[in-house]
């Protein structure tokens, strides 16, 4: 999985490319943890190029969301593909990590996308 860090005002976007699965857990975890340790308070996971999330991937999402909350930070998600959106929905992940369809809404934390 390729992960690109893209700072924007008031948040950092992580552009994820590949599968968010057991095999890629270390890359994902260390990318997000690095941001948290640098004091980032809002990380936006851009899911547009993520094709699949497995059960380990769901656990990682829950874990990073918990860790950010401990620092009064938050995690948001951007534009998951429909299959990924379905997997996230079945596990009720949007309850923990709000999902948005564009960067500006994600930054503002506005009206959750359907």
């Amino acid at each position: 999985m390729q992960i690109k860090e893209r700072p924007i005002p008031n948040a950092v976007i992580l552009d994820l490319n590949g599968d968010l699965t057991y095999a890629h857990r270390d890359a994902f975890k260390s990318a997000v943890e690095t941001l948290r340790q640098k004091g980032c308070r809002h990380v936006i996971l851009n899911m547009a190029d993520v094709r699949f999330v497995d059960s380990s991937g769901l656990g990682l999402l829950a874990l990073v969301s918990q860790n950010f909350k401990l620092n009064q930070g938050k995690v948001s998600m951007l534009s998951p593909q429909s299959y990924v959106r379905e997997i996230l929905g079945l596990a009720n992940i949007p309850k923990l990590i709000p999902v948005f369809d564009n960067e500006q809404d994600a930054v503002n934390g506005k009206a959750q996308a359907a």
Partner: protein
Amino acid sequence: MSTANTDTASKAAAFSTTATVLLVDDEPVSRLSMVARLKRMGLRVLEASNGKEGLAILRRERPDLTILDWVMPEMDGPTVCEQVRQDPDIHSSQLILMTSHDQPEQIAEGLARGADDFLSKSASKQEILARVQSGLRAASLVRNIESTRDQLRIKQAELEGELQSAASYVRSLLPAAGPVAPGIHMSWTYRPSLALGGDLFNCSSWDEHSITFYILDASGHGVSPALRAASLSTFLRADNLRHYMDDSDPARMMAEANRQYPLTEDGSYFTLWIGSFDRRTGQLRYTTAGHGGALIHRQNETVEWLTHSQLPLGFESDTQYKSSAIQVTDGDRVILMSDGIYEAPASTGELWGTTRLEATLMAHRSAPLGEALPALMAEAERWNGSSVFPDDAALLGLEFRL
């Protein structure tokens, strides 16, 4: 290594444990002279007068080093080299070919046919000593590697034995198929993806009127999820849950399990489905924490999935799990399953899916539960193209005769 150039120094460089050298040469005079030299180096020397005899001794005695004349009756030196390299029992033997004239083409041919080194018949004492020592050094390295490999194999077998024993413990946690209460019959089938499974299920009486049953799935693969699964399975025993609650409300069980099993540091967690059936009312109450594999297959053949979207265990410490209730009627079957069943991928990557699963269930509706579940598993395996699923695959079925 010593660069000794006297016989005394040669002896001083003698080999720590007496190494054995096999000398194969058909000329008695040159053989005697070489044997004497090797013995003076402190080596144990075996002799053979042709290639065939040499090969037989090599197989029987496994010398540390074998020195072969090139030209011999019965079987020449290069042929012995080839035979040795083709035999897995002795293929790592160290072989030195001896020739009277060392021409580059001949050396290349000898090496190509399996020799490790060359020795000219006119070589000096010092050169012979150096080549023998070099050959023995290589032999000792090879023996070290082989003995390390053998030890690893033994360790590996021990570890696999441990895993098998852990796996049989995990299997011992699974319920015995058969009647669980008057009018309720249980059946199951189970395929762990590795020796140890992270999916477990059970069904037991809560009190004289009701039964509870569940299926859990620990995320990840291997030993750690299996241990965590065994722990949660023990937690979910009715005699333990009674310490926390006095009724069999699945939502309360789920909330308690959620408090007891937070996310691990590496993000491992459980999905869990719990049902509670009361025979007096015929009502099934159920709740789910991220587990999608539960359905009721009605006597009239319709299938309803018994799921709602709720967080898996440990994602949030204070999740309020809601439960739902349905009425069970005579002949209905409730089936709990690992998501590995309907997410079984074909070689193309396409998943088996709930639609095909439902069609297979329909096709086996008239078969007894004990046959319908294995048939369902077999169909998922056929789709997957292998009897080993990428994830654990468990199926638990209850048939109600009310």
